[in-house]
């Protein structure tokens, strides 16, 4: 359990900062979203090395899941049960998509897999818009339904506080799952797969099984995140927003920045990225991307293993020097 302690400690500090200092809840929730995104994506990207460029589709499906729960159950008297049903729906929908994508697209590797997943994301978005399902391009607005279920005071509390608490929980559970995987057979199998898939296969590792397991786990966390950080918080779902490829890239940046496949990586990456993005958009509104883009290029060129990865390497290097 020891590797989990610094992570829990940091989450608690973040929570206390947000809860006690007035005006800090918003930035803390913003940063937590990116940390949770990183933790969720790390389970797939970090552990398998496969680049899913359409990851945001899982968040999108999750946010639709929550919106569907509210729009069809807002006349029932289930109260918080509706949120629960929404969460389950979000998980189920994103897992089903990940199973479908995983079963077919995980046969492809490298650039082909990345392009195929972009295709899934965009194809799904245009299907929703084109066939006019779930409100088509007009999306779903559920602020009225949330008020119907909870009354306007609690509804406000749900979208400004409860939604963010869920994000904290998702980040924590995703980190814990990562920790569990890393210390089990699955972690070693995935490590072997990431280093050399063919060799791992020859050694008798069922690579397909572990790849799909990591994919489904990662996708269901993404679904939960979409359901809470987007639908519950914003109270609407627009296909043009929720299928935006930028979120996928942000998730990749966070995992990469921290160090793919490490337990602390997404936390470090999410913290750095979230703080940079939030304060750049406060200090220099409209210019944050102009600054982030070259930073992204520099990080990719300078730290191909991410910051946590680079630190690990450096520490290891010094240790081996001593031993020699």
């Amino acid at each position, binding site marked *: 359990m020891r590797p989990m302690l610094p992570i829990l400690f940091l989450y608690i500090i973040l929570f206390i900062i947000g809860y006690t200092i007035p005006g800090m809840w918003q930035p803390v929730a913003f940063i937590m979203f990116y940390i949770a995104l990183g933790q969720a994506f790390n389970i797939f990207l970090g552990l398998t*090395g496969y*680049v899913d460029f359409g990851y945001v589709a899982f968040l999108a499906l999750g946010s639709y899941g929550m919106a569907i729960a509210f729009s069809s159950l807002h006349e029932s008297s289930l109260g918080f049960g509706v949120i629960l049903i929404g969460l389950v729906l979000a998980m189920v929908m994103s897992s089903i998509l990940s199973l479908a994508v995983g079963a077919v697209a995980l*046969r492809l590797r490298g650039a082909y897999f990345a392009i195929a997943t972009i295709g899934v994301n965009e194809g799904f978005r245009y299907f929703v818009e*084109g066939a006019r399902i779930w409100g088509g391009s007009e999306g779903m607005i559920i602020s009225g339904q949330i008020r119907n279920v909870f009354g306007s005071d609690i509804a406000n509390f749900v979208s400004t506080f409860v939604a963010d608490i869920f994000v904290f929980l998702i980040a924590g559970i995703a980190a814990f799952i990562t920790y569990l995987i890393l210390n089990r057979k699955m972690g070693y199998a995935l490590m072997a797969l990431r280093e050399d898939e063919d060799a791992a296969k020859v050694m008798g590792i069922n690579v397909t099984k572990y790849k799909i397991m990591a994919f489904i786990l990662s996708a269901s966390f993404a679904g939960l995140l979409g359901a809470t950080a987007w639908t519950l918080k914003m109270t609407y779902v627009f296909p043009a927003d929720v299928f935006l490829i930028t979120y996928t890239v942000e998730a990749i940046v966070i995992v990469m920045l921290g160090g793919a496949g490490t337990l602390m990586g997404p936390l470090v990456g999410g913290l750095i990225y979230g703080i940079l993005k939030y304060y750049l958009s406060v200090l220099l509104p409209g210019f944050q*991307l102009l600054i982030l883009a070259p930073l992204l290029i520099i990080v990719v060129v300078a730290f191909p293993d991410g910051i946590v990865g680079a630190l690990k390497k450096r520490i290891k290097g010094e240790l081996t020097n001593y031993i020699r």
Partner: protein
Amino acid sequence: MAFVDQLLTNLLYGAILGSVYGLATMGLSLIFGVLRIVNVGHGAFIMIGAFTAFWMFILYGIPPLVSISIALIVGLALGFVIFYTVIKRLIDAPELATLLATFGIGLFLEELAKLFWGPDYRGFSWNVGSVNMGMTIIPVSKIYALISSIIIAFVLYLWFQRTKLGAAVRAVVEDKEGAMVCGINVTRIYALSFAIGIGLTVASGVLITLFVPVGINPYMGGEYTLKAFVIAVLGGLASPWGAFYAGFIFGLLENGSYTILGLLPNVEPFSLTRFVAFTALLIILLVKPTGLLGGEK
């Protein structure tokens, strides 16, 4: 009969637009074929080309056909600069690094364009008369676009097949180590191929302005990046020639299915057309990842 006429008209437009799509994808395929890098920021270079055509026309009255050569030079220079500052260091890096780096480059170019030229939609119209084709009237500027993309693709083909440098590029694609042993400077070939790929893409941006009267804006490229992916996969991802033919097919399919899907009640044919395109992409990737048209050699 009205429907058949409409379908034929749209298919004709599809073929013309498809030639420009083909040219716009050749750069992507060339870069992937030689360097094994997927340029996720592809569309930003098309945007640069579109703005080149726009400013040349508005400020100096230079017609788009002349701007093609200017755009080619701009693109070549841009390609060399980007290669030697970023891409060179990532040649042997995993996909993750190159995907992120090229995305970052595209984003940076878009933001720079927004900084200098603002986020508004702009456009210009280059009026050089039109031709009556019987069922429809086609502007001459679009026919020029068709002819220029065919000529550019053909010149590139000749360059690859008939010159020493072209042969060197083919040798690097065939066998990197072997080419190195034969005294080919592989890094320089990479740089040249990347620059040509970017140059072609920027040049195709000029031709795209002839089809989008008021669609020039810093973020216009995203749509073309996605289309280019579909077309590149259709043509085999690593083959510029495959991409060029696939562009034609894509243009025909896009406009044809738009006309047919428009008959369905209660749908948005524009979005469904794209859904069809991405479904086709997935099917091709699964059934024949090397592309429908020969693909990698």
